């Protein structure tokens, strides 16, 4: 089978380097109107009246919309329908939108938005997740009865017995912070009413199908009455799932009411104020170990601040629960996880999805335990890590794929020169100002949604009469190169050149609802569907042309843009085979559906086959800490991840580096700072994501063990790279300073992290 060159190729690369790529805000529409959201200054309040009269009369204003204008459902949510298109009964956090102004220009809409008056009865705000759980606490959602969004648990063996049998019991408390996705493109949407009655939506969102669901529900129309069209998107990282869909719904509502296209392009401060964040966690963790370095038990309590609305808190915290012991075999586990409502910024999906928090805990705990026992952290990991055939803490036997934990650990240790560099670490003592440290961390990760939800993806391949091919899959191009990966998989499976295959512009009206492009599921699920569609197509073609090739249909092969019989037999060009298909009135069209293999979960015991497959990763980082200033400088990082099969090596490497960079920000720079529920750092000068000089040279080691349960052999890479650099940095900081850091971000200096104003305006 011919394999197309798969290093760095992207179908959208040319458009993106020439400025030709049209993102949502770049699209032009005749008679376009512009919208701006209206916020109040309340953090928690009961709404009495929203007075829009003055704003409605302002220059250029066409309409001011509030909850009363929503013809369908004002409430939505993927799990609990508690999120509002516009705040109706209460304001529950500082980012709640009470109204939207639609005007001739964006400036006029923004100007008028200041004229909307919100009369409300201020309520005490609950901003601490522990306080939110106390009896008598202020309730964020009265109808919910408490501030507890959800719980998860694991009950395996007896943690009490395990802890009693331990030679050492280690107990620590960890905290992680709220962080922002900081996709470069803020939320934006344009909706337009079409002559056929359909509302067409273009927007920056990573879940076209749930967007369509929310838009249709908001308008009170069937799903067929809304078409969400794929548009290049400036990054998502999990952050353009819920909030982005409401931005689309609001513009769709305005377009429907006013009969004109309506655009809403978010300012950065609106985006940071309103969009959901990574959950801040508080974790109490107790680990028992024997003196020969075996973990006997883990008892932990995980508290996640979900903010004002549910979003996907139950799913995020479920992954945290399943992976609460890291990639280690532990026979006795008692885990209680709580997701909580507060009046803080909403927390939801973000790359990693509940694992970066837990890995920050676990990968430091194993180092703490190793020191107590008196062996190296690496040796401790080796004694406890999952291996081929191991049983996880949820009772799942890992035997359907290659368990590559040891392989990635060895790869990183070797490449980084970890053991010898560890011996050179400062541990708080150095001759000069710089303390040196190296640290590592590793994880395993369940791929795709697992027992969170139904997991199916579809793809359509339609060959045109001239032999050119149109492909469409139910995964979304978030900027990660999903379309290119699908094209590469299709071309490889069909034995045709890349130039023959084109990705059809994605639309919710043509490909079956395939769920959301999150959970690192794009390549494995979309690629599975594409592979199955290609196989079905080949079968159809083989059935028609096998007579001409003088062989049974099952012996027909597809290679080098041709269709062949067995070796030495006849060959015809792909175009010729397609011509024969159309002559035979047999349509070269296939729809492939990949259903994730079965998973299971028992919510009472926290036992089950949580995910149908797993990936394995390890990262090491070297750094210095300045004794006087506390400044941490990253010197280098090495990562190894098993990706199943690398579909596009340069794009896989890009996922490594991007994930590690985001994790470096999580470890050292980033934090949403709030005062009384109001976010203080609302732009990219004060919310500081890593810049080029903050990051070290990074090395990517791609480990490939094609997964038998993945039709394309590929697994996942987007999130695994993002979930272990923070604990690796924490471990390196310990090895440099001799002090353990229990909270993120790690700040060893008092210096503020803001970019000075003058540095901005270059």
């Amino acid at each position, binding site marked *: 089978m011919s394999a197309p060159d798969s*290093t*760095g190729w*992207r179908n*959208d*690369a*040319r*458009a*993106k*380097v*020439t*400025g*030709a*790529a049209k*993102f949502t*805000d*770049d699209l*032009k529409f005749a008679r376009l109107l512009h919208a701006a959201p209206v916020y109040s200054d309340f953090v928690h309040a009961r709404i009495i009246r929203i007075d829009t009269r003055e704003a409605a009369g302002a220059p250029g204003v066409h309409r001011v919309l509030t909850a009363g204008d929503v013809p369908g459902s004002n409430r939505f949510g993927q799990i609990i329908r508690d999120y509002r298109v516009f705040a109706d009964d209460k304001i529950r956090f500082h980012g709640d939108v009470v109204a939207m102004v639609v005007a001739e220009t964006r400036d006029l809409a923004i100007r008028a938005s200041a004229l909307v008056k919100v009369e409300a009865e201020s309520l005490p705000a609950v901003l601490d997740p522990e306080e939110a759980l106390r009896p008598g606490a202020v309730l964020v959602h009265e109808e919910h009865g408490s501030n507890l969004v959800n719980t998860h648990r694991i009950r395996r063996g007896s943690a009490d017995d395990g802890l009693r049998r331990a030679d050492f019991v280690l107990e620590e408390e960890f905290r992680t912070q709220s962080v922002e*996705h900081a*996709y*470069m*493109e*803020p939320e934006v949407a344009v909706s337009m009413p079409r002559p056929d009655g359909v509302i067409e939506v273009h927007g920056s969102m990573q879940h076209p199908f749930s967007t369509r669901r929310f838009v249709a529900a908001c308008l009170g129309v069937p799903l067929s009455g809304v078409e969400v069209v794929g548009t*290049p*998107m*400036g*990054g998502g*990282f999990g952050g353009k799932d819920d909030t982005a869909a409401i931005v689309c719904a609001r513009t769709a509502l305005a377009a429907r009411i006013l009969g004109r296209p309506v655009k809403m*392009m978010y300012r*950065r401060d609106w985006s940071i104020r309103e969009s959901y964040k990574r959950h801040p966690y508080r974790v109490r963790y107790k680990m028992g170990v024997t003196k020969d370095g075996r973990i006997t038990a883990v008892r932990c309590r995980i508290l996640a601040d979900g903010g004002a609305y549910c979003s996907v808190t139950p799913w995020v915290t479920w992954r945290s629960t399943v992976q609460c012991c890291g990639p280690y075999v532990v026979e006795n586990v008692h885990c209680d996880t709580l997701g909580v409502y507060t009046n803080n910024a909403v927390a939801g999906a973000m790359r990693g999805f509940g694992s970066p928090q837990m890995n920050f805990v676990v990968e430091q705990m194993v180092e703490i335990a190793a020191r107590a026992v008196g062996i190296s952290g690496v040796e401790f990991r080796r004694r406890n890590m999952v291996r081929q055939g191991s049983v996880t803490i949820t009772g799942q036997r890992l035997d359907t794929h290659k368990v590559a934990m040891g392989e990635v650990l060895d790869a990183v240790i070797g490449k980084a020169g970890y053991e010898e560099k560890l011996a050179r670490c400062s541990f708080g003592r150095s001759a000069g100002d710089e303390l040196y440290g190296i640290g590592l961390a590793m994880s395993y990760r369940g791929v795709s949604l697992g027992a969170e939800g139904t997991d199916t993806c579809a793809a359509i391949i339609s060959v045109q009469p001239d032999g050119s091919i149109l492909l469409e899959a139910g995964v979304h191009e*978030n*900027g*990660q*190169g999903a379309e290119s990966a699908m094209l590469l998989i299709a071309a490889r499976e069909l034995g045709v050149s890349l130039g023959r295959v084109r990705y059809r512009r994605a639309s919710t009206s043509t490909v079956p609802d395939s769920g959301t492009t999150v959970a690192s599921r794009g390549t494995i699920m979309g690629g599975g569907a594409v592979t199955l569609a290609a196989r079905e197509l080949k079968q159809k073609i083989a059935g028609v042309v096998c007579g001409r090739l003088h062989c049974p249909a099952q012996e027909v092969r597809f290679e080098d843009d041709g269709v062949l019989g067995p070796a030495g037999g006849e060959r015809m060009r792909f175009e010729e085979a397609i011509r024969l298909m159309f002559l035979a009135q047999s349509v070269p069209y296939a729809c492939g559906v990949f259903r994730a293999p079965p998973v299971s979960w028992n919510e009472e015991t926290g036992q089950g086959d949580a995910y149908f497959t797993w990936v394995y990763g390890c990262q090491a980082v070297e750094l210095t800490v300045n004794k006087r200033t506390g400044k941490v400088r990253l010197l280098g990082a090495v990562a190894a991840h098993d990706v199943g099969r690398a579909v596009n090596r*340069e*794009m896989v*490497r*890009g996922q*490594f*580096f*991007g*994930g*590690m*960079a*985001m994790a470096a920000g999580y470890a050292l720079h980033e934090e949403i700072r709030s005062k009384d529920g109001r976010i203080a750092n609302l*732009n*990219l*000068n004060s919310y500081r*994501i*890593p*810049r*080029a*000089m903050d*990051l070290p*040279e*990074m090395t990517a080691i791609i480990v490939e063990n094609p997964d038998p349960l993945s039709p394309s052999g590929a697994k996942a890479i987007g999130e695994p790279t993002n979930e272990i650099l923070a604990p690796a940095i924490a471990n390196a900081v310990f090895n440099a300073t001799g002090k353990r850091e229990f909270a993120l971000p790690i700040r060893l200096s008092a210096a503020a992290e803001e*970019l000075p104003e003058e*540095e*901005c*305006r*270059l």
Partner: protein
Amino acid sequence: MRLHINGRDLEVADSAGERRLIEFLREELDLTGAKNACDIGACGACTILVDDEPSKICVKRVKDVAGRRVLTIEGMAAADGALHPLQRAFVERGAIQCGFCTPGMILVAHAFLLRHPRPTREEIRKAINGNLCRCTGYQQIIDAIEEASAHYASAQSAAPAEHAGARILSA
């Protein structure tokens, strides 16, 4: 007043001088390669070159570039559509993911390489430090700039006196 944008002269009414430059380029000229992502010059997604110097135009007015030579991403490729070697390097080295920072990143790198055709990786990091990218961790962007630098070095030794501009290397 007269504007020189991507090698073309353009006469605009003086009254346009107070308009935000990014809005003018995007709305009036449909040069949408410059992106608006922060409004305060913190992220660099709106970067263009003015007389070969990077300029964050979300904080600039039209009059700020009157009579000066403006290059946007739309002017980087040759007239026949052939990619500039720097653009090619971005494509080949996997330096693109979402693409939102890409136009600004390419232009900043172009201005830098015109002056420093033989940079170290550390110098490249410094040159692009004012341009944020959330997808790539910058690694492959630096790879691409490093790779493309060879073209600038050879162009410089071949034609040192020629005016600097995008097309100098794209013949």
